[in-house]
């Protein structure tokens, strides 16, 4: 899967789960501040990403993931 395709898929998950407009889902966007996501939103997003990409994300790997770009890196590292 190309980098663009990965981001596109991740972005779609974020739009669906967090109910935000697509143009707000940029790599610099912070989940808590820019996308208004609470902790349960993030858990839901992780569940959606696990399903969409067929990956499994451990609880400990989520530490320090605060931006869309960091989430993208994490997903990419698992493909």
């Amino acid at each position, binding site marked *: 899967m190309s980098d663009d395709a990965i981001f596109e898929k991740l972005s779609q998950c974020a739009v669906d789960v967090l109910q935000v407009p697509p143009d707000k889902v940029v790599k610099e966007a912070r989940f808590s501040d820019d996308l208004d996501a*609470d902790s*349960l939103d993030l*858990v*839901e997003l992780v*569940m959606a990403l696990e399903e969409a990409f067929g990956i499994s994300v451990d609880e400990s790997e989520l530490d320090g993931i605060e931006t869309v770009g960091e989430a993208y890196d994490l997903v990419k590292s698992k493909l």
Partner: protein
Amino acid sequence: MTGGNATHTNRTALVTGGSRGIGLATAIALAHRGDNVVIAHRSELPVSTQDLINSLNSVSSVHTGGKPQLEVSKASAPGTTPGAAQVAAPGAIVAVQCDVRSDNDISSLFDRVEAEFGYASIIVANAGIVADTLLLRMGQPAWDDVIDTNLTGVFRILKRGVRPMVRKRYGKVVLVSSVAAFLGSPGQANYASAKAGLVGMGRSLARELAGRNINVNIVAPGIVDTGMISALGEAKLKELVGSVPLGRMASPEEIAHVIAFLTSDDASYVTGAVIPVDGGMAMGL
């Protein structure tokens, strides 16, 4: 999506420990009001329970045009969640063997539920065992077994079961605790600990999931006329009943009715509550 006044019908309920006692009474109460019910049970289904389910299913088939419920499992493929609910007639009861100590069993249980009916929007965590003995004589296995089933088993069920509720933004969870959680109960340090643990678990979950329109409540039954009290012996039972203001045991149905209320949309503003259903036995605690 769903306001406080919305009324949902054709829901699916999962009741663990559903083959007898409070669980069975709850399954029947929910089926009667039109929910599809999946009973999870560990031990062999008693013949009387199977007969009861059969007769209830035959009645509910009549209501829905004679559609047999139990064939649905063969007809529908896993993953056909949202539409599948229309296939099954309302009020059907299906029994699935499941040990809440086993992640594999739980996984297959939910796969089955979701394949047949769509997601379970109601979960009644009722499965429980006793292994009574004074703490000084309590072996580690008696402690571990009871905690593993009565407390950790609920964690396992909820961890898998609330996932779709979160997605769908709708769910009703009831944990069946016990008056023993508040009064203490000699010979039941293991059981009372697990049942007290459910209060903390339920209230934490109520806070975690409140934003997703999911209500989590706890019922704390007192002395209920089920197989579980037969081990008490007549003298002990008489003494216990003597401490109940209403002066008698509860029937399983009397607990089931409260659970039915808590899992109804009439109770939409009730969450994180501990409801004693104990004839006044532990009032004020």
